[in-house]
Every structure is written in C-alpha cells, then in structure tokens.
C-alpha cells in the first residue's frame, strides 16, 4: 500500500530532516510512528500526503508514484487527520464539513448524505450533524475531523497525533473507533499507550532515521531503546497505568 525507498527530505534545501528512509506498509496494517519531538514523524506523514514538498528517493502510495501528476489520484485514496482539528474543520457545521470531501469527489444527493451519516455514525457523532463547529468541544472536533476523512472512504489513513488534547473518555472512544477502522493506518503519536492499543507494528524514528521497525510489543517493551531515543515505556506497561 505504501512503499518508500531511500527517501531523504530537507526543508528549503537545509539540513535533511528525513535521511534515507525505507519503509513498506501492507494493506490493512496499522503502523505506529513514534519518536521524540523533531524526529520527523509529521514531516513523513505530510510527505506521504503530498503536502511536504520535493524529496529525494522513491515513494509509492496505493501503487502510484508520489509525484505531482499523481497527487489528485493519490489524495482520493488517502485521508489525513491533522494534529490541530481547527485546521481540518473550516466550514460552518459538522454536516457541511464532513460532506466537503465527498462533494469534491462528485458525490451528490443521497450518496453524499449516506457517506456523511455513515462517517458520523462511525465516530458516534450522528446526533451532532447540525452542530456549529465553533460550539464543539476539543474532543468532538477531533472526532468530527476523523469523520471528514472517513466520509471519503480512503484506502489509507494518516493520523497525526490523534489523541492530543483528548480527555481519557474521548481518548478511549478514539482508540475504539481506530480499532474498528479496517483500512491501512499510519498513526504518528507520542501517546505510546494508544499506539499499544491500536497498532500491531511500530516504527521508531530518531533524527529523521528509522531506528527500529518491528512489532509494537517488541518495541514498546524495550525500555532502554525507548529511553535512548527520548521516550518512555507506556504507562500501561510500567504498572502505573
């Protein structure tokens, strides 16, 4: 589903923030992308969505080379959830925002309606379809921004810090929702407990390089590996959670 080979990327031709990355993600896989601040998690996700800029190396998303001429086709199969929901939601009501994607892909009338309602049901927001965005709580906004992506029925979902600013109840709800989604997912997060609960595979990034790529259990149980790269064991594994 996603294949990158020897990918290197730098902002404005400065020092590279991603060095020689190679990664392959299979269909249906849930991959956690972890690392300290500045490790390159968000940059990698943005590059995969085609909003990062020019890179060196090879990258394929959904069988298509990641280049300008394929961006429209790639974006039709890919959903990106921004870290900041305020940037994701820009229309007046939940309904309008969730319908924005389907309408742009030519769905109108009942089909657009059905997609919106299906997406809202998945995130348990069907009762808030007429709610104005600016009156929603942070948790509701996060779920609504996930619904904006689900309504497009993407093959791949890229989620940047999805659990940030969520209270424990909403966070648990989000984990439940993510586990219900069968599409390929790449989740970049510092919330290692969420990664533990949602991803079968984890990739540890440090200084723009892949340090370790393996099963979530193997990586998240390795205290030394995590601490060496600015992270800590998930609370649920320390006995404190």
């Amino acid at each position, binding site marked *: 589903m996603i294949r990158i080979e020897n990918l290197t990327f730098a902002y404005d031709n400065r020092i590279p923030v991603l060095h020689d990355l190679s990664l392959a993600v299979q269909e249906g896989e849930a991959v956690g992308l972890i690392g300290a601040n500045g490790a390159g998690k968000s940059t990698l996700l943005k590059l995969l969505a085609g909003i990062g800029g020019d890179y060196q190396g090879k990258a394929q998303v959904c069988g298509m080379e990641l280049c300008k001429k394929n961006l429209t086709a790639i*974006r039709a199969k890919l959903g*990106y959830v921004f870290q900041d929901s305020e940037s994701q939601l820009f229309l*007046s*009501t939940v309904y309008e925002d969730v319908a924005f*994607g389907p309408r742009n892909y030519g769905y109108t009338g009942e089909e657009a309606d059905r997609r919106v309602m299906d997406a809202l049901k998945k995130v348990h927001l069907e009762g808030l379809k007429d*709610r104005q965005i*600016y009156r929603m709580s942070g948790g509701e906004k996060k779920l609504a921004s996930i619904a904006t992506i689900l309504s*497009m029925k993407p093959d791949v979902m890229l989620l940047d810090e999805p659990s940030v600013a969520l209270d424990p109840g909403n966070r648990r709800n989000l984990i439940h929702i993510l586990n219900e989604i069968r599409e390929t997912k790449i989740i970049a997060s510092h919330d290692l407990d969420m990664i533990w609960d949602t991803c079968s595979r984890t990739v540890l990034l440090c200084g723009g390089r892949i340090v370790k790529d393996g099963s979530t259990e193997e990586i998240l149980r390795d205290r030394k590996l995590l601490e060496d790269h600015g992270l800590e064991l998930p609370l649920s594994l320390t006995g404190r959670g």
Partner: protein
Amino acid sequence: MSKLKKAIQDIHLSDVSQKGQRGRGRGEAGSGAEISLHPLAYLLVTFFYLLLVVSFSKYDLSGLLSMVLYLLILGIGREIRLREALRHTWPVLLLVSMVGIANPFVEREICWQWGEVGISYGIISMLTLMLKGIFCVMASYLLVMGTGMEGICLGLRSLHLPKELVAVVFLIYRYLIVLLKEAERMVLAYKLRAPGQKGIHFKVWGSFLGLLLLRSMDRAQTVYESMLLRGYQGEIRGREFRGSKGRSVAYVCLWAVALFFLRVVPVFELVGALLP
C-alpha cells in the same frame, strides 16, 4: 466576552442561515442539505432592491422612504433585531452617512418652508443619499445574515460566475475567521503576561501586527492543505439545494412586483395625504 470573541461568534452566527435556525440554541444550525429557497432567489431579490434604491433621484426622499418596508419585512421575517443589526454595521453606516454631507452647503435654495425653518434642496439630497447608503448596507447585511456566505457562494455559482472568483470570495471570508482567531489568541497571551495594562502598548503594535499576519497566513496555508487533501480543485462545492424551485421562483416574482410597486408608489406620501 472580548470584542474579538464576539466578532468571531457573530461571523459564525451569520453561517446559521435560514429563518428559524437562529433560535435553535446550542449551535444547532439545521441540516446543510435542507434549504427551502434557493440562495439565488435571495441574491436576485437583493440585487433588484439595490438597483431600485439607487435609481431614485436625489430629491425623491418621500419615495425612497417606502423602500424601508422591504428591510422591515425581511428583518422581522428573519428574526433579526434592529439593535443587533446596528451593532454589526455601525462603522459602515457611519461611513456611508458621510456621503453627501457637503450638499447643504452647496445647494442652499429653499424647497420647503416649515414655519421659520426652511429646508433646502441640499438637506433633502443629503438625507436621500444617506438613506440610499443605509438601505443598501442593510439589504446586504440581511442577505448575508439570511443566506450565509456558503449560500451566497452557491447563488453566485448558479449565476455562472467564474468558480475561481467565487472561491476567492469564500476563502477571503474564511481567512477573516482565521485572522480573528489568531488575533484573539495573541491578545489573550499578551494580556495574561501584561496584567493591569490597558490594551496593547503602542510600542509592540508593529511586531504584533507582523506576527499576526505571519501566523494567520501559516494557519490559512494549513486550512488550504486540508482542503486539498479532501479533493478541493479550485471550486467550492457547498451545500446542495433540494428545496422547491417553484417556491424560489414565486419568491422572486412576488418580491419583484412588491418592490416595483414600492418604487413607483410613494406609500408614505399617500398615507400622509389620507391623514386629516
């Protein structure tokens, strides 16, 4: 509530477009799919109204006064309070009221004597120009409050205006919200670190405005990226119209007749003549 927060809230309230939705409480705006009348109908009636208002001669004050009836009917129908409307529009109203302010000094010929007081042509033309400006602003305000920017964009697209132009109108409107939100955040951060200080010190105005511009542009870029990632290709495909076309046409026809009547019949003059 700060003025900035109030401004953001007011802009969002204008998104709650259709009649009756204003009172729904906690941010309920009605399904985006349910629009009873096509926004183009509101747009056409407003254009027609504006055309008729500017068509009055500068001395036809009594005739122009009858055009206020449209604003009153629409305002009452859309449950828009006069105080609320004046609070939103007073800077623009003040500006348009300045048009023709010099007329009384230029046209001093007396056209109407009321006891000792003489009313000159200049005063009449000044009042007419003022009212024309006020009526136009209020009609546009009622259009935005009643139809919402998304509705207006849908109406403009129905008129086959270039999609790029409509997208620019829509994005400027959205950028305004982004700008205000960033300004609100920055002012709050400033106030929390400058207790007891009234407003923002003039020494930091320059850097404050520069930073506000940079931050809002950055944020606008992210919003744009979010739109691109959801298939945006230069055309805003907003809410769909699923109401009755017949009702929309009837709305336009009825208002066209009513407005034309108000244009040719000086209602207030007639009512005045009937009084003993």
